[in-house]
């Protein structure tokens, strides 16, 4: 592995975290709406 590899892992971690938050957040919102639809 070359020594001058760009040190930008922080951006990658941020992107993966943001994706997880958006996808999980929407999944939870669907789950909450589904529970509400079942009980109403």
């Amino acid at each position, binding site marked *: 592995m070359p020594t001058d590899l760009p040190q*930008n892992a922080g951006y*990658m971690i941020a992107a993966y975290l943001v*994706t997880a938050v958006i996808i999980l957040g929407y999944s939870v919102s*669907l789950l909450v709406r589904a529970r509400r639809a*079942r009980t109403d």
Partner: protein
Amino acid sequence: MTPTLAAARTTVQRGLWLTGLGLLGLAAVYVLAQGFTPLEVRQGAAQKIFYIHAPAAWAALMAFVLVGLSSIIYLWLKDPRVDLFAEASAEVGLVFSLVMLTTGPLWGKPIWGTWWTWDARLTFTLFLFFLFVGYRALRGAIAEPAERARFSAVVGILGMLLVPFVHISVYLFRTLHPQPVLLKPSAPSMPPEMVRTLLVSMVVFTVLYLGFVTTRYGLGLVAQTKEAARAD
């Protein structure tokens, strides 16, 4: 519970199971991208953003094309279920667009040196996002269901017409955005291990789309069935 309501709730359940499967797949993509895909020498770790950015773009554009197609079918058949599907697909498309529009700048900053540039691909994509935000706002502003479906179908079709421009903008204009590595006439311009991770991620994002849209469509059906029962 009427049989129709039961069927709508079953659709929601199926969607949730599919979503669960998609979430497991997403976890697998994270492991595959981090542990089993080589680092790109020139871009470093930031290149791995590509494995979520490109599949999110794929899912978003697919969602918006399906909004347009179902809008055409709605205007032809006037079936409210098709309108419900278009509504569901537009919402899910916005979720994936949000992933695309946040991960893109997170890649752009270390590679281009800027979070954003008014490049043709980026600008078209942002317009598409705002167009479908407008689609959602329009649906919220019209109370009468048939009128809401008809007006929003027209906006949905216009949104779909923008999708090919987003895809070919990198060929039509001088742009900073990289050209497609997979969805192009020639062979993929990446090593096989990277193509494998990208393909797995695209399948996973497709499963997530199917899970989200099935759940959201089922929720729309439940609401519509209850509304009809109240009106009787």
